[in-house]
């Protein structure tokens, strides 16, 4: 059987979900944002909730997410996505409402908004893309930047004395009674991406149970900001980001012991 025969007679076992538009993403080659967009789109497709989903885009490289994922969108001021999501969900409790935020957006300028949305137990999903850097503005240090990591504003590496320590958000908000599900995932390999997709689906399902906020952190790469090739950035992430931001579930209020 030739390759052409397989294409002609074989089953299609993977294809781009129609929930993604035909617009070419503006992201750098290999950027994790595209992979995460796709996983969210596949979850929405498989759950059949395209008409019932409202998303909030951030400020950061993913500001234009509304051009790529075919659901209803709002675009928030920098860091304020959880506030906008709060209003949107309270006015439309039957809708699935999620924010999509980078680490500069969520862990820096928007820290107050995310903490209070978690504390209030808003029934929303938060997708948190932690690439340890301000990608959009040219690779400056973010609160999540690792110690020793070189960025445009820490050219000799992040120094705790001068720049403080990396801010680890997920375990902080896990302590709050308003959070239902908190997990940390990645999308650099196919098994990791499949796990991340299952986590995103669970977060969407939990958000309709009235049990509080679901938070999916994706430890991600910004290969341009890190000044590496996409494949090298994935390797660097495994070796350097994962020890500080280990993958796995951090909180699940419905998990039976």
């Amino acid at each position: 059987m030739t390759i052409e025969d397989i294409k002609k007679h074989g089953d299609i076992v993977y294809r781009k979900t129609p929930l993604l538009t035909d617009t070419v993403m503006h992201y750098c080659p290999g950027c994790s944002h595209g992979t995460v967009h796709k996983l969210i789109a596949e979850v929405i497709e498989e759950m059949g909730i395209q008409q019932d989903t409202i998303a909030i885009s951030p400020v950061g490289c993913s500001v234009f997410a509304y051009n790529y994922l075919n659901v209803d969108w709002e675009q928030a001021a920098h860091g304020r996505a959880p506030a906008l999501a709060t209003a949107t969900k309270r006015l439309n409790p039957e809708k699935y409402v999620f924010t999509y935020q980078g680490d500069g957006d969520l862990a820096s300028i928007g820290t107050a908004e995310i903490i209070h949305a978690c504390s209030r137990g808003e029934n929303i999903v938060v997708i948190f893309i932690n690439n340890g850097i301000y990608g959009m503005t040219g690779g400056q240090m973010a609160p999540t930047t690792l110690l020793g990591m070189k960025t445009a504003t820490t050219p000799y590496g992040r120094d705790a004395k001068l720049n403080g320590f990396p801010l680890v958000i997920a375990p902080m908000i896990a302590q709050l009674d308003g959070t239902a599900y908190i997990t940390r995932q990645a999308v650099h390999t196919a098994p990791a991406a499949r796990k991340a997709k299952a986590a995103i689906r669970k977060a969407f399902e939990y958000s309709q149970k009235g049990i509080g906020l679901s938070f999916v952190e994706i430890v991600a790469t910004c290969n341009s900001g890190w000044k590496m090739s996409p494949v090298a950035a994935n390797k660097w992430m495994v070796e350097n980001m994962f020890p500080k931001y280990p993958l796995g579930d951090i909180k699940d209020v419905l998990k039976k012991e």
Partner: protein
Amino acid sequence: MIPSGICPANKGKTQTTKQHNMAFKGAIEIDTQKCKGCSVCIDNCPTGSIQLSKMVNSKGYHYAEMIGEACVGCSNCGIVCPDSVITVYRVKI
């Protein structure tokens, strides 16, 4: 509906080439104009069935292309492609 991202043969678990070679043959189609040549698919292919072309597309990227006949249709390349430009076909043999 096509189960996007999940390998129906092994319910999404990590696969070995050996298991698959016995049962499936696959092929991929790449939207070369939209491929950005990031190589993440190449790094995730268990059968070495993808390489970057010597040619470039209209954006100047060396795009990914399928090579050889070892593809088993596992969909790894499809799910990790940030730009979702890969379609995966498979037949049982």
